[in-house]
């Protein structure tokens, strides 16, 4: 806060920040040119509609950096109150992490470790089931660079990047002219499988509309066909909503691809079957490697949710849903995941980092969070910050603070911020809380 260079920030001179990184979605586009005047980004060249909204809506907001029970307080007072809450809790929860730098994520996990709490990320309500499936059957993976240069069969299953990752098609998966797909879109076949005709479906060569909640059946149909197993045509159509001949054609196309990739979204992980759906898809991709090179990738949503998985895994050995209460990490989705801990009314305190469970969680979880003392860190006012015992207004990652984020294909990318914020970074707050928590625990 103290090193904020006010004169540079109030200057009217136009500055261009080249190759800035957009952290709104998991595409993490790092080719954005920002036109910055003072503390306002006037233009975000090459950003999509979501990226533009992200960059252009981060003006410096007046107001305190910290509120305790809704009243302005100093950052130091906020850190003290936060540390008292966390060090005194019996079953605390540290949750969120996906919309900040990996440097901050690391400190959040450290706090959970010191206080013997639970640490969970927004992965658990996004691609957590995919993480469970990966543990079960493994993952044949690749980078987005490989998709761009090699992918000639691109499939989206329960994913709608046209709305959620608008530059996915143009930057990575469909349009680019790559080393082995020199004619770009013409060299690629695009298939979309979904329960409704999304915007992405309109960009596909082939759209398969399946019955709602029939992903598991559809994926096992494909697995059987790829293995050469005969199936009952009537049953297949009844259960999946598409005739057997359509699945046979698709299985043959997949086997004939030179480099296939399936991007999957929350249509698989949030629907009945969850990790069993994803497991079926990961196993299908693995099976296809008997015939050709075939890969599968979760279409990760938040800017650094992939970093959250990585950091929690480095620190604890597990990607999300970890309890550190016994002094060693235990992983159990359904037990140590935020939605369950809050829904069952177990947590007695929480630290919510860069996420908004009061806007996204089910009713019991929201009601419980509102009934316990919790700390929230966010660059914006959200339903979660409004109800927090201690709310920190922090600088935005990628816009005001540097650091590292992981693209959806696990490639780490540095941030190039546009201007400084008078508000502290969440890293500063978290390291302050960690330091004070350690002192309090030591004194006990």
């Amino acid at each position: 806060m103290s090193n904020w260079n006010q004169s540079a920030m109030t200057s009217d001179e136009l500055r261009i920040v080249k190759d800035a990184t957009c952290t709104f979605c998991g595409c993490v586009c790092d080719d954005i040119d920002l036109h910055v005047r003072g503390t306002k980004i006037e233009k975000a060249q090459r950003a999509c509609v979501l990226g533009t909204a992200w960059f252009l809506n981060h003006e410096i907001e007046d107001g305190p950096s910290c509120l305790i029970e809704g009243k302005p307080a100093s950052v130091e007072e906020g850190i003290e109150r936060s540390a008292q809450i966390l060090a005194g809790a019996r079953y605390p929860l540290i949750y969120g992490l996906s919309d900040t730098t990996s440097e901050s994520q690391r400190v959040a996990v450290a706090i959970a470790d010191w206080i013997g709490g639970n640490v969970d990320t927004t992965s658990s309500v996004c691609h957590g089931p995919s993480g469970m499936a990966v543990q079960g059957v493994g993952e044949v993976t690749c980078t987005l660079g490989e998709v761009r240069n090699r992918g000639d069969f691109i499939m989206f299953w329960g994913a709608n990047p046209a709305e959620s990752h608008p530059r996915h098609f143009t930057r990575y998966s469909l349009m680019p002219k790559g080393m082995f797909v020199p004619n770009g879109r013409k060299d690629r076949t695009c298939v979309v499988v979904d329960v409704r005709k999304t915007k992405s479906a309109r960009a596909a060569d082939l759209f398969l509309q399946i019955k709602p909640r029939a992903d598991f059946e559809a994926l096992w149909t494909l697995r059987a066909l790829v293995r050469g197993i005969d199936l009952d045509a009537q049953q297949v159509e009844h259960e999946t909503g598409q005739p057997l001949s359509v699945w046979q054609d698709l299985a043959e196309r997949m086997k004939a691809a030179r480099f296939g990739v399936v991007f999957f979204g929350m249509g698989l992980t949030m629907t009945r079957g969850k990790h069993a759906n994803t497991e079926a898809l990961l196993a299908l991709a693995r099976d296809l490697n008997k015939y050709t090179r075939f890969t599968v990738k979760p279409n990760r949503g938040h800017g650094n949710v992939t970093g959250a998985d990585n950091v929690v895994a480095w620190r604890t050995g597990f990607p999300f849903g970890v309890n550190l209460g016994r002094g060693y990490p235990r992983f159990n989705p359904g037990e140590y995941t935020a939605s369950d801990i809050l829904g069952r009314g177990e947590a007695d305190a929480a630290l919510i980092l860069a996420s908004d469970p009061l806007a996204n969680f089910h009713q019991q979880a929201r009601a419980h969070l509102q009934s316990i003392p919790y700390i929230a860190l966010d660059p914006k006012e959200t339903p979660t910050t409004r109800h927090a015992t201690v709310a920190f207004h922090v600088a935005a990652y990628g816009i005001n603070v540097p650091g590292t984020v992981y693209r959806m294909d696990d490639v780490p990318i540095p941030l190039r911020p546009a201007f400084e914020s008078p508000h502290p970074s969440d890293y500063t707050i978290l390291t302050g809380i960690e330091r004070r928590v350690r002192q309090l625990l030591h004194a006990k």
Partner: protein
Amino acid sequence: MTETFVLIPGRTARQGCGISEGKFGDNYQQETNLLLVAAADMERLGLQDGDRVRLTSPAGQVEVPVTAAKRDDLPAGLLFIPYGDVSCRLMGGDTHGSGMPTSKGLDVQLEPIRHDQ
């Protein structure tokens, strides 16, 4: 008269922009409080754009305005709503040991709210 539908909450570009603009702003609030219904279902139920319906799931009940889905975006029997407070109120808390509540493909009862109600 109530009828069972399958509700798909999901992401839209406008909802995504609304997150950056601020969740208390018009864009986010309007987008996350609007239910898309297949045109054929709208006609069959005698619904017009802007009419309100009551949705009930085992987890909760909400009232929302409806609009007809464009072209053939939605098959009959399916409803779509951008993620937000309304969709959360209908989502159950049971994660079936996965950490993830079933958040898409929810069975809901739809009941048109008549103007005289």
